[in-house]
């Protein structure tokens, strides 16, 4: 076996990471992100808009309720658009500002943050946690550890419950939980999601980012020299070393880095940003915050570790508008406006006229030909409508409906339709433009095509 290269040790245990608490601009930003994102997650199911849960994915009924809008399976193009928009936004913001997603918005980061708050609240700050883990198992330690896991599990269970509440009306679900009459699938998904939260935010933490996350591997492909990264100003900081505030650092031959190693201690992935940009860095900016505080203490200028770009570090100028940012931005804008436009002009009515398969046509006494159809009609609106049916391009057609065209909110109906034409109206296939319009709202209008069959000559044998 060959000797390991210098600085490498075989069989070294990867140390557990105890991130030190940090305060400052970016920590506050992350706190706001946590409150807003988790607030949305935990509260949205409880908010009612237009009589419906603000966000409910009713899978058995195959309907999605989003902020008072109802989406049907036929609207799945919006789902595709949403995914494309999400992907493009990720490209756009990554090119512009690096791993913003990882540091502030990723569920892994957001839930881990809360789990660490709980841990800190029960076990204390970094030195206390390290000491507690190293200490032998006393009653006090067992109590503290148990308390932490109980709170974690309760929080995770609530998370699992909320998650299922996006798919089953949450109030109903809550009553079922209280009555201990939860269905098997709801129980399974609640426990599954709770377990995933507990495991990911409590134990896996930065390992998910380091080993499992594909975005962490891909993101470098979206970077360029003008992308915002978190960087240590080597020029300014080195040579690093401890000193008194009153020391003359120029005379002592020292840079601005006082080598307090706080930037390493606050890092949730346990790296040293002073070694340069590393793929483990999730750009949470905790090192920026803590270093700024140290610089303030030492009365040095802030920004020894800062958000900057490679170009800015090299020659001091950075371009925000680059071809890739413009292309991503324009695409994003186009898709977004297109989606909004199409959603606002969406007609909440769907109709199809399906020919009766069993007969071509029927000849009635008096020289009348009858074609039979089934009208499959869906009122996608949140209120009931009465519709008027008319043939636009043939005024000789008589319409006979199996029942009045009145549909309740979100009703789907199959209505038999008979169209009668005098034999003099034509021969062979007649294409009819049939208009359906809500009598109380002329903007809800749909024109569908139907084929009516007529006898070829005036006297066919039947």
């Amino acid at each position: 076996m060959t000797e390991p290269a210098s600085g490498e040790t075989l069989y070294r245990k990867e140390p557990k990471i105890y991130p030190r608490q940090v305060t400052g601009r970016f920590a506050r930003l992350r706190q706001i992100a946590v409150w807003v994102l988790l607030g949305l997650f935990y509260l949205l199911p409880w908010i009612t808009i237009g009589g419906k849960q603000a966000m409910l994915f009713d899978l058995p009924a195959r309907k999605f309720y989003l902020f008072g809008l109802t989406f049907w399976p036929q609207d799945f193009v919006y789902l595709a658009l949403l995914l494309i928009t999400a992907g493009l936004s990720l490209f756009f913001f990554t090119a512009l500002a690096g791993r913003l997603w990882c540091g502030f918005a990723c569920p892994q980061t957001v839930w881990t943050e809360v789990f660490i708050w709980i841990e800190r609240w029960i076990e204390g700050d970094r030195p206390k946690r390290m000491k507690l883990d190293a200490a032998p198992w006393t009653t006090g330690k067992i109590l503290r550890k148990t308390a932490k896991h109980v709170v974690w599990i309760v929080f995770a269970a609530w998370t699992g419950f909320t998650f299922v509440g996006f798919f089953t009306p949450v109030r109903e679900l809550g009553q079922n939980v209280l009555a201990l009459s939860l269905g098997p699938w709801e129980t399974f998904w609640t426990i599954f999601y709770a377990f995933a939260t507990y495991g990911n935010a409590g134990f896996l933490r930065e390992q998910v980012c380091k080993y499992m996350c594909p975005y962490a591997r891909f993101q470098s492909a979206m970077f360029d020299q003008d992308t915002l990264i978190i960087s240590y100003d080597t020029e300014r900081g080195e040579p690093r070393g401890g000193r008194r505030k009153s020391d003359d650092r120029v005379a002592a031959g020292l840079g601005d880095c006082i080598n307090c190693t706080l930037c390493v201690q606050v890092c949730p992935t346990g790296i040293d940003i002073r070694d340069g940009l590393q793929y483990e860095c999730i750009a949470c900016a905790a090192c920026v915050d803590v270093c700024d505080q140290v610089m303030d203490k030492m009365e040095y200028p802030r920004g020894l570790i800062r958000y900057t770009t490679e170009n800015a570090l090299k020659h001091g100028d950075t371009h925000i508008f680059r071809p890739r940012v413009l292309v991503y931005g324009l695409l994003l804008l186009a898709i977004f406006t297109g989606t909004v436009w199409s959603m606002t002009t969406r007609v909440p009515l769907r109709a199809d006229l399906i020919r009766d398969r069993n007969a071509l046509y029927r000849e009635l006494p008096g020289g009348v030909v009858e074609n039979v159809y089934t009208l499959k009609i869906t009122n996608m609106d949140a209120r009931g409508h009465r519709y008027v049916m008319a043939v636009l391009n043939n005024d000789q057609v008589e319409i006979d409906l199996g029942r009045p065209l009145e549909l309740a909110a979100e009703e789907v109906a199959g209505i038999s339709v008979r169209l009668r034409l005098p034999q003099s109206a034509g021969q062979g296939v007649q294409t009819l433009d049939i208009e359906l319009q809500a009598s109380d709202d002329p903007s809800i209008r749909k024109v569908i095509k139907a084929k009516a069959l007529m006898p070829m000559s005036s006297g066919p044998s039947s």
Partner: protein
Amino acid sequence: MAEESYDETREIPGRWTERKRDVGTVLWIAFLAACAGTFVIFAVVDPDGLNDAWVLPWEMGRRLVYSLGFLFLFVVSLIAGALTAFMIRTGPRRGHAHGRGQPPVPETHPPEENNPDLDIGDFR
């Protein structure tokens, strides 16, 4: 546990390169998975009944649905396989779990060490 030394850039005629092996494996396994998946799904689901669901506006024959179902499963399996191969190939190298190839753990010490003016009470 002797480790043979080898030249990573050398290619031996007749042997597949790493890239070739990745692509071949991903394609073949995705194909097998899609076959098995198609078989199981359409043993249970009759595509002729799918028109009642009335999501797609056209009437599709059984054969078209079988083919689309297979292609869909194939593409999904391909994406999963290709991503997995990518993650493994670009991740930590062989021996990582046994301590090889890691950068040293960054050294830390109490911040106030050598910096007597730093008051650790200000940092939680």
